[in-house]
């Protein structure tokens, strides 16, 4: 009997801890979104910090990530076009390539890349700031940490996911055109017709919402996990591990929800 009570107590404590972290995550997401949409929040310092954050999260990685996305897109397009030709479905090769890359693979790969590069760094930074009492020091000296520390990171992450998804998607469209029609301009009307068929209003809204959700997740979850770190230095790597695992599942959940919404 004591073993059962002990087991239930531990499971209950774990469940409560999970509930608390999710509540904190949604609370933080709400506060950050409200702050980001409030013009009064943007004073000279906030603008400087947000601009720097956008540079370090989005601009600095633009070239290497775009090159990688071009390579990935090229390989996947070749596979789709080749397979479609084998089965006599060449007419659908362009549409299949675009649906695969622009609607599904590139937004997810972009979110995973930003999560690995910036999300893990944000989680570590916030966890260490909490362990070293730096957040309390900032608040004691009258600094709004939401405005100066968390909101810039979230805006940087969201813009990073949105802009990198947009840039790599345009690149994938160009590569798909070249793979299907070759390097000539006479098939542009056919290409435009297929694009019009794929990208209707609902799909465009869906991509935008999915990318925004990805962007919010890759920054808010690491910040929330960092803020929940117990004040012990050895907990910093555990906090990052937990944050990244939660982030992975959330990204996958958003992707699966998006697929279900579109195709089921």
């Amino acid at each position, binding site marked *: 009997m004591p073993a059962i009570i002990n087991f239930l107590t531990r499971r209950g404590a774990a469940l409560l801890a999970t509930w608390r972290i999710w509540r904190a995550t949604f609370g933080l997401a709400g506060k950050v979104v409200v702050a980001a949409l409030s013009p009064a929040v943007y*004073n*000279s*310092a*906030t603008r*400087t910090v947000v601009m*720097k954050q956008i540079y*370090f999260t989005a601009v600095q990685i633009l070239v290497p990530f775009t090159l990688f996305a071009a390579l990935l897109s090229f390989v996947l397009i070749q596979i789709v076009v080749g397979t479609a030709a084998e089965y006599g479905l060449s007419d659908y090769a362009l549409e299949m390539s675009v649906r695969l890359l622009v609607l599904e693979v590139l937004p997810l790969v972009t979110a995973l890349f930003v999560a690995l590069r910036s999300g893990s760094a944000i989680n570590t930074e916030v966890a260490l*700031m909490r362990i*070293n009492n730096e957040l309390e020091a*900032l608040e004691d000296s009258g600094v709004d940490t939401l405005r100066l520390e968390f909101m810039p990171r979230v805006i940087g992450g969201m813009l990073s996911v949105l802009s990198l998804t947009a840039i790599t998607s345009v690149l994938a469209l160009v590569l798909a055109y070249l793979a299907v029609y070759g390097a000539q301009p006479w098939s542009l009307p056919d290409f435009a017709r297929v694009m019009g068929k794929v990208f209707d209003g609902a799909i465009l809204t869906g991509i935008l919402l999915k990318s925004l959700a990805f962007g919010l997740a890759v920054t808010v979850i690491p910040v929330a996990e960092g803020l929940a770190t117990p004040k012990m230095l050895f907990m910093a790597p555990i906090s990052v591990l937990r944050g990244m695992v939660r982030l992975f599942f959330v990204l996958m959940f958003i992707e699966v929800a998006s697929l279900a919404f579109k195709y089921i």
Partner: protein
Amino acid sequence: MPLRANLSLLDNIALIPQYRHNLDYETTSAQAWNLLLLTGQESAALKRDPQLSHAERCVAKLLRAAIERPPIILIDRPALLLPDTHYPPFLSDLLERLADHLNDCWILDYRWNEPLYPPHLLSPAPR
């Protein structure tokens, strides 16, 4: 307070009046640059936190405090900030250079470090 890792030393100092008084970056960075010139650390202006030496980081933190001219600046156990520097003469020189920009500056240190400090930095009151 921590320096922001993705801002340069100059930006970190300029950020304080930007935040407190919503001054534009040109004005605050000019103030920050003048303070850096006074301390002779202008070569570190564009370095970010991970690239700074202990002395440069200490100067950055002091200047972030000094740029607002608070009534008192307290340097708590400077050996923690300057583990690789013979810090009493370093601090003495730094405070002399910034004399016109500081109201009152207190250094809090262990009693057994008292002989390290030049006499003019020691408080006359019994401690």
